[in-house]
């Protein structure tokens, strides 16, 4: 019998598989496909202070082994999440959930974090300083170590729950930003968010996305994500949640060998609604194949 449990800041997960924010809504769309209580947890849709419609469409463009999205943080706003989404979620999901916190100013990050922090269903705050699809917020905070540290410090000052900072790969030195967040008190790090990309239609000779650029995700980015997780996890002491292109149980193991304590699965949920279920069910056999008794033992196994 293999052990798939991992621990994130004192909360033990049955397995390291966590659907990534923005690919799993508030769980509603997936509960008809399978019982989502099999998940380690999931990170819910990025939430801001106000309701946001997001960007104009088209918001999606296909790529080789991946896709671009430029949704632009569409969400119902933190009050609606607390009043409606969380009570609905409580009816069918019985584990601590990860709250994805967004903002366009430090004050907004703090306000959203403070409100969500009070909700007993929430186990962790994942602060997104890396959304590539909005202007004046999101990634603007995640591309400078000082800004990333400032958001981290401000959120940590109001949060009782563990705070994970979600990092952007669209930077020259992700390790410097990771360390700045750790020094500012982050309890953990999530990486990577999507890579900034674009596609142009040959028919119209114009960008496919209404937003011109969007975030690239899917199996194509896995080697980049793996490399960044490897670099960051070696440089910090806090746990790292690795993500970027994970599509199989083998990818989970590889990401954990690079130093991830848990993983998130994003784009693959959109292609196959059963993706996380299949990955979780595939883990014991993949572990047996590679002689792994306990997933916790392999975290950072590739470092030496």
């Amino acid at each position, binding site marked *: 019998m293999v052990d798939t449990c991992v621990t994130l800041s004192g909360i033990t997960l049955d397995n390291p598989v966590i659907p990534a924010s923005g690919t799993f809504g508030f769980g509603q769309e997936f509960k008809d496909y399978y019982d989502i209580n099999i998940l380690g947890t999931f990170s819910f849709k990025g939430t801001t202070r106000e309701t946001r419609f997001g960007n104009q469409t*088209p918001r999606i463009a296909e790529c080789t082994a*991946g896709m671009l999205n430029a949704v632009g943080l569409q969400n119902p706003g933190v009050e609606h999440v607390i009043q409606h989404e969380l009570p609905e979620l409580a009816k069918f999901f019985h584990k601590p959930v990860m709250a994805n916190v967004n903002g366009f100013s430090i004050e907004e990050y703090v306000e959203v974090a403070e409100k969500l922090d009070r909700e007993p269903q929430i186990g962790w705050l994942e602060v997104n300083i890396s959304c590539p699809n909005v202007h004046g917020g999101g990634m603007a905070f995640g591309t400078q170590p000082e800004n990333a540290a400032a958001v981290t410090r401000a959120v940590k000052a109001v949060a009782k729950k563990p705070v994970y900072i979600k990092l952007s790969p669209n930077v020259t030195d992700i390790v410097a930003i990771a360390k700045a967040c750790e020094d500012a008190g982050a309890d953990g790090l999530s990486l990577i968010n999507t890579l900034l990309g674009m596609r142009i239609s040959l028919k119209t000779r114009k960008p496919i996305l209404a937003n011109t650029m969007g975030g690239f995700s899917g199996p194509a980015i896995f080697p980049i994500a793996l490399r960044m997780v490897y670099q960051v996890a070696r440089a910090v002491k806090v746990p790292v949640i690795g993500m970027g292109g994970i599509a199989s149980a083998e990818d989970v193991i590889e990401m954990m060998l690079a130093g991830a304590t848990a993983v998130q699965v994003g784009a693959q*949920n959109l292609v196959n609604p059963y993706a996380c279920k299949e990955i979780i069910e595939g883990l014991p056999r993949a572990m047996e194949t590679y002689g792994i008794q306990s997933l916790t033992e392999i975290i950072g196994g590739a470092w030496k």
Partner: protein
Amino acid sequence: MRLTVLENVPLTFNVYRMTLVGDTRAITRAGQFVQVQVPGFYLRRPISVYDWMPAEKGSVTLVYKALGHGTEAMSHITPGTSLDVLTGLGNGYDIDDIAEAKAAKAPLLLGGGVGVPPLYGLCKRLIAQGKTPTVVLGFNTASEMILQSDFEVLGARTLVSTVDGSVGTKGFVTDAAMLADAFDYVYTCGPEPMLKAVYRLCDARGISGQFSFEERMACGFGACMGCSCQTKYGSKRICKDGPVLVKEEIVW
């Protein structure tokens, strides 16, 4: 869901009909769509349902246009191939619960191009309800015309318009609709300029209707927010809350 391709044949130079067999019980309404995993492509292809037989060993027929690399590859899939398909997606046309739709005796169905196929399954079910639908099909030119005889076989009066006048009324579906007998409700599917023209036609006649929209999407089941649109009652996802919107909620 694994479905097996029974046939995949051309109807015109770039429009194909694919019939798949397998569990189709999730399909409940005309106007719903499926998401086909075409081998070698990352995202699925959303394709509207032409007709279906809902059963554990049922069937579903899709009529689709080879528009890009994915649908082009789909057109080469051979019978016997097993495909991963998500079925029963979207709300579809509501012919049972909307008061005006129920009350209507002579609905008008207007389809443009590859907006035509979902109207077939709809027309069949409206006739089964005892209604007398009239169908208007619009194409660019005669060589692109599809499914006209299918609707005639159902017994629906079928009018055709082409932009170049090579068959039927020269112009758009709204021009051919002038030849239709009195109608009291509208169901439509096609490109947005056509839907807008049909919307104005509804206004002119003081009737309501249901409009099926198209948008680029990723998941097709409401998770990614890739296909959101604004309606009078807030934002909706074309894939999950649509693709069919009732006239009263559309912002035009």
